[in-house]
């Protein structure tokens, strides 16, 4: 998994690529913790280049939501599709997270 971050206005866009699984989820969680600990409270996670997610990856997202809630922050996911979307559907995540079709829409949703 590759993880890149960039700032867009008052939000951070986290762009992932590859797999978010039991092996890579700890790295994702560590990066998210660091972002939130350093004061970021609006996060967009872009799934455009993610082709696989397991429950380990879903737990990473739940952790992000929990940490942001504790700080009054918000998150939105973008470009959740294909296999990743199927796994979200299986676990009811589409109703748990804000999900938009593009990063721009996701940024607007948490602006």
């Amino acid at each position, binding site marked *: 998994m590759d993880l890149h971050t960039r700032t867009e206005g008052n939000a951070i866009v986290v762009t992932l690529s590859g797999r978010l*699984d*039991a*092996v890579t989820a700890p790295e994702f969680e560590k990066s998210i913790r660091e972002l939130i600990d350093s004061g970021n409270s609006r996060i967009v996670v872009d799934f455009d280049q993610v082709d*696989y997610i*397991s*429950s*380990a990856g*879903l*737990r990473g997202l739940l952790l992000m939501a929990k940490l942001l809630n504790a700080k009054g922050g918000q998150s939105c996911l973008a470009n959740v599709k294909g*296999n990743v979307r199927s*796994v979200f559907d*299986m*676990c*009811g995540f589409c109703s748990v997270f804000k999900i938009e079709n593009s990063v721009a829409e996701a940024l607007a949703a948490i602006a």
Partner: protein
Amino acid sequence: MIKIEHLSKKFGDLVVLKDISTEIKTGEVVTIIGPSGTGKSTLLRCLNLLEVPSGGSIYINGEDILDKKTDVAKIRQKMNMVFQSFNLFSHLSVMENLTLGPIKLQGISEQDAQAKALELLRLVGLAEKADSYPDELSGGQQQRVAIARCLAMEPDIILFDEPTSALDPTMIREVLSVIRRLAREGMTMAIVTHEMDFARDVSNRVLYMDEGLIYEEGTPEQIFEHPQKEKTRAFINRILSYTRRISSPDYDLYAINAEIEAFCEKQILPKKTRNNLLLLVEELLQIYAPYLGPIVLDMTITYSEKNDRLELICESTGEQANPIESESLDDELGLMIIRNLTESIDYQWINGKNRLQFLIKK
């Protein structure tokens, strides 16, 4: 007619036949099926003494053919063999191929031998090819000539060693129809074949060979419809499997994934099915992970070509408990995914192991 007792055959240290005992009665058609390399052809070659058995006995009509006093040439006349590669004499015409044995070995006159040969060529539908040479014939025609040549020696039994395996699919039927005709006429035959439909139709009895043994035998219905033993079932249903033992919580997920992908690639499973399988395996490994080390997990993926059925079987040591009903799971996410990816989940405690069997959605 033929009685085989405790037959064994070794090639150096390699044991090909371990302990074969069976009987073939007059008029019976016995097919021998099983994976490659399990000794089927070696068994036939031992019967015909093309290979000398390492141990055991073979009786033909009560005569021990392994006795040093036995006339091997005479035995081979009684028990003739059809090979997968035809083995016709290429420098002789079809007629000469058929008459050589009867004239030289049985002392039959050329005229009588030719009359008999023509009759047999009519039987296999090749009378018009009597003057042709083998290389002027198709593979299917050459094999029919080989069968006619075999019949010319008026054997008591014919041994067929994969008679269609060297043929193009279009030529298989013509050869099988000749063998079917011989079966109807009461010829005693032992046939090694990979043609399962043919074996089911033509046989009185089927021997399934595996591990150098007659692993299971029975009527075609017993073997093809209700095989009792696991390896027979796997062979009949064309089940291919991959097993991975995991004994440490520090397993290499990506190495396991690569092996599963290679298995799926081999079975030409759709990409979506592969992804579902990889996800299911990961979710299960996460559930088992805290217990690995003290317990050992064997994960087996089986795919039945015949039924287009993909299953995952997890067998774990340890105390009797269904791993996916454990109250110690942190959350239900993994289970939700597992249930969504599978059509059925079956838990059993078998032979001191916890066995979970998942039928995977296609």
